[in-house]
Each structure stands twice: as structure tokens, then as C-alpha cells.
């Protein structure tokens, strides 16, 4: 009952609200086309018929939710996952690049944070570059990363994953610098009275103290990794992946296909972020957090 009251009810209410607005805009945005059609055919169209038609166009300006749902059902469940028309296939291509990029980015972010926390010189010299790296528009740099890596014979999954890495290392590095510096002076003094080595201070104090920061930044990093993977597929003429699907959809005016891909990407992001959240809850429990 609690689950229903605390999760299903509020989320469901917002969902119904979104669907209502979506349907309203479907009618508003698709109506001009229907009116043009009617005018061209010199017929009049009743309001009821107009509304019905706006939700059943083949290439609507804004497809109705049930059209998108039908497209998702068709491309996810009805078509074999090995087919190039299956969203499962495209989703998997994007997901694998997301996860590889996210893994590498998280690792890179943690390593950078460790280096920065332990060296004043690196703190001064690296941090400005890390921040600058994120001011470069990823859309501009993505094709170059892929071209450059292609030139040195790195092809396939890795170049795309590098774009996710490029985006995802940043929140992890910044979060972990903060996390590794979070122990109070008293905790550090305590370690000093035990004559603990730097490695001991790291593993017994800084690392466990930084866990909440790590998971918070990993949630941001995984979502941004997915964006990176999709962006990496857009300007590079990729033949597979959610990004390729979006691009193909926009070439051929397949708005239903675009929206289906968008919704699936959003669902994937939600699942990934929730998974990190679950792992965080599990680790927090192990580390004695109040339930």
C-alpha cells in the first residue's frame, strides 16, 4: 500500500497530466494539415472527424502517444532483435557504447580525483583543464574524435564510447575530489595519531567517506553517457544505434519512429540511473546508513 501511495500515485498523476497535454498538442499541431487536406478536396470536416484524423496521420508533426506506443511495441516486441529494424538491436548498440564509455569515464574520473587530492601541483594544473574540457561543444568535437581515432585504426565501439567517456569523467572527477576531501580534520588527525600511511588514510578513510559523492556523480555520469553515445552516432553516419535511428527518422520524416526512439532512450536512461540508485542503496546499507 505504501508503495502505491508513495510511488505509483504521484508518478501516475504526473504521467496522466503529461499524456493529456500531449494529446491536446497532437490535435493542435496536426489539425492544420487535416484542414488543408479538406480544403484541397473541397470538403468540410467535422470536429470529431478532425480530432480522430489528427491522431492517425502517417507523418504527423507530433504523433499521438498511442501511435508511439504502437511503434515501440512493433519495433521492440514484434520484430526479431537481430533485425536492423528492431529497436532492441539499436538500443543494444547504443547501450553497449554507453556502458563502455561510462565505465571508462568513471574510472578516469576517479583516477584524476585521486591524483588531484594527493598532489597540490596537479590540483593547480589539471583542474582548470578539466573544467575547460566541458566547455567545448560535444557536437563539434564528436566527429573529430571519431575521425582521429579512425586514422590510428581504432574503429567500432571504442570511438563512440570515447565520447561518452569525455562527457562522463567530468562529474565523477569533480564529485570525487569533493568526496575524497570530505573527511573532517578530526578524522584525519586520528589517522595521524596512528601513524597511518597515505595508502591507509586513503583506503580506510578517504575512499569510504567519498562513497555517497561517487554514486551521486555516477548517476549524472550514466545519464550523460547515454546522451554522449547518441550524440556520437549522429554526426558520424553511424548505421546502427538510437542516434542512427533518430537521424534516419528525420531524413525520411518518420516522426513516429523518432519519437519511439526518443522514448526508448529516455526509458533506458531512467533504468540506468535507477540501477545506480539501487547499488547506492545497497552499499549505503552495508556501510551502516540509517535505513
Amino acid at each position, binding site marked *: 500500500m505504501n508503495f502505491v501511495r508513495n510511488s505509483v500515485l504521484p508518478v501516475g498523476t504526473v504521467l496522466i497530466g503529461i499524456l493529456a497535454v500531449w494529446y491536446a498538442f497532437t490535435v493542435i499541431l496536426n489539425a492544420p494539415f487535416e484542414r488543408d487536406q479538406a480544403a484541397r478536396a473541397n470538403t468540410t470536416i467535422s470536429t470529431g472527424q478532425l480530432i480522430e484524423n489528427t491522431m492517425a496521420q502517417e507523418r504527423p508533426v507530433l504523433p499521438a502517444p498511442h501511435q508511439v506506443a504502437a511503434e515501440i511495441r512493433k519495433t521492440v516486441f514484434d520484430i526479431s532483435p537481430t533485425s536492423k529494424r528492431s529497436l532492441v538491436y539499436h538500443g543494444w548498440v547504443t547501450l553497449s557504447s554507453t556502458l563502455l564509455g561510462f565505465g571508462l569515464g568513471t574510472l578516469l574520473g576517479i583516477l584524476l580525483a585521486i591524483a588531484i587530492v594527493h598532489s597540490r601541483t596537479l590540483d593547480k594544473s589539471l583542474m582548470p583543464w578539466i573544467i575547460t574540457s566541458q566547455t567545448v561543444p560535444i557536437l563539434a568535437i564528436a566527429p573529430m574524435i571519431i575521425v582521429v581515432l579512425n586514422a590510428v585504426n581504432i574503429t567500432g565501439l571504442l570511438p563512440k564510447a570515447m565520447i561518452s567517456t569525455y562527457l562522463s569523467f567530468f562529474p565523477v572527477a569533480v564529485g570525487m575530489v569533493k568526496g575524497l576531501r570530505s573527511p573532517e580534520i578530526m578524522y584525519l*588527525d586520528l589517522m595521524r595519531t596512528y601513524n597511518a600511511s597515505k595508502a591507509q588514510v586513503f583506503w580506510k578513510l578517504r575512499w*569510504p567517506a567519498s562513497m555517497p559523492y561517487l554514486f551521486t556523480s555516477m548517476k549524472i555520469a550514466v545519464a550523460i553517457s547515454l546522451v554522449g553515445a547518441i550524440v556520437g552516432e549522429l554526426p558520424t553516419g553511424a548505421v546502427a544505434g538510437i542516434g542512427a535511428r533518430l537521424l534516419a527518422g528525420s531524413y525520411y520524416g518518420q516522426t513516429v519512429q523518432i519519437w519511439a526512439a526518443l522514448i526508448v532512450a529516455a526509458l533506458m536512461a531512467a533504468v540506468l540511473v535507477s540501477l545506480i540508485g539501487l547499488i547506492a542503496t545497497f552499499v549505503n546499507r552495508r556501510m551502516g546508513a540509517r535505513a
Partner: protein
Amino acid sequence: MSVVTLRPKAKPMPQAAKNVIDVKDLSLVFETNDGPVNALSNINLSVDGGEFVSFIGPSGCGKTTLLRVIADLEQPTSGSISVNGMTPSEARQKRAYGYVFQAAALYPWRTIAGNISLPLEVMGIPKAERKDSIARNLELVNLSGFEKKFPWQLSGGMQQRASIARALSFDPHLLLMDEPFGALDEIVRDHLNEELLKLWAKTQKTVVFVTHSIPEAVFLSTKIVVMSPRPGRIHEVIDCNLGSERTLDIRESPEFLEIAHRVREGLRHGHSYDQAHL
């Protein structure tokens, strides 16, 4: 007791040892943005083995700073100091003392047993001996049965007891305590004072104790060091030995009140001296 054997270089101190701590002409100046601050000025002090010495004084008198100098957490500007006949740095490296902070400073992600195990892990003591030490020291502070609890599940007084058990876990001969009961209410504080006294009698450690409570200092100490601020210095050292069989009732006795009066006078005098010179 087996823990001692793991530190072959640190010989057990005989109980009557002279000069566990020896401070000569020690001064410490903090450089701040508002200019230098004389945190400690011309400190001379010696603490013998088995003594219970309290530093008392108003805030800013340098009592915590002096304790931190003994613990090698601060460096003196001039003068000399020895702990167990070594420099504070050597003493720290040989893990000569256990330090209890104002707050319990238990690591929140470790259980009570895990927290007491922390110094032993750092010192590379094998698991079986760690287990023995945890059980023995939890019993010493009356916390047996709380091994698997996390710090937040314990009251403030219990947390501070756990932190004392942690400081004792590797069996140091010197216990440095920085206002350990300052954040606790008076009822809990009285109770812990009694327990600390029993613990001191049982373990025969040398204790250096920072406080700003006169009854606490008089009740616990064999020697009270009255300090005064600006510059931080020792105003007076008052001997105080109310016998080993002390209970809280002793605080009503004439001897107790007499010493408490002397401490209070010393503190007041330290202050007026201060005002006359500023």
C-alpha cells in the same frame, strides 16, 4: 596484553617512571592573517608515569594546543619536549599514546567493533588479536554486546566510551584526552568521570586530560595545571590527590572544596593578570 609484544621497540614503562612527558621553555606562535598569536609561551611541565594530569583554563589559554603538541599534531616554535624520552614525532611513530577527541569521531561506516579495530588494522595486528582486544576493551568501557551496532545507534555518552576503547585498543601507556566529555550533559558526564577513574585505576595509564570544568578536574586528577590566556601559559600547578577510593560523594568533602577553591582562585588570578597587562 599481547598487543605489547607486537611493538618490540616500545618497552613497557615501569609505573613509577619519571618524566613520561617533559616540557622545557616551550613556546608556540601561530602565524595568522591578523599577525602572530602566542598560543603557548614558556611552558615548563613534567608528567610522571601513572599520573592523571588535567589542563584547565578558559578558552584560548592553549590547553588543547599543548595537548596537540604532546601528540605531535602541532609543532612548537621553540623550546623542547620529550614524550617517553623521545621527540613527540618519534613517540607518535611508535604509537606511544592514544588520543581521545572532543567529539567521539567514530567512523560512521564502521561498526563499534570496526571502529575499535581501526588502529589495530593500521598497525598491522592479526585478526585474532584484534578480536581479543576489541572484546577486552569494550568490556573495559561497559559496551560489551554493542559490537555490531553502528555509531548513530548509540547515545553520545556511549559513543565517547567507544572512542576511549578505541584509544586503549593498542594498549598505549599514555592517554591524551581533549575535553572528551565536554559535549555531554552533566548526568552522563558525572557517570563517565566515575568510570574513567575506575578505568585509570585498573589500567594504571598515564592520563593527560583537558577540561574547562573545575569539579571534573579536581575529581579526576592527581595534578591540575591551571592555564591562562594571551599568551597561553601555565599559571599554577596544583597537587590534588584525594585518595584512590573516590566516589562522586567526595565532591561534598572539605578537601575537595578546598582544592576547587584554589583552582578557581588560580583561574581568576590568571585572568586579572591578563586584563592588567592588556
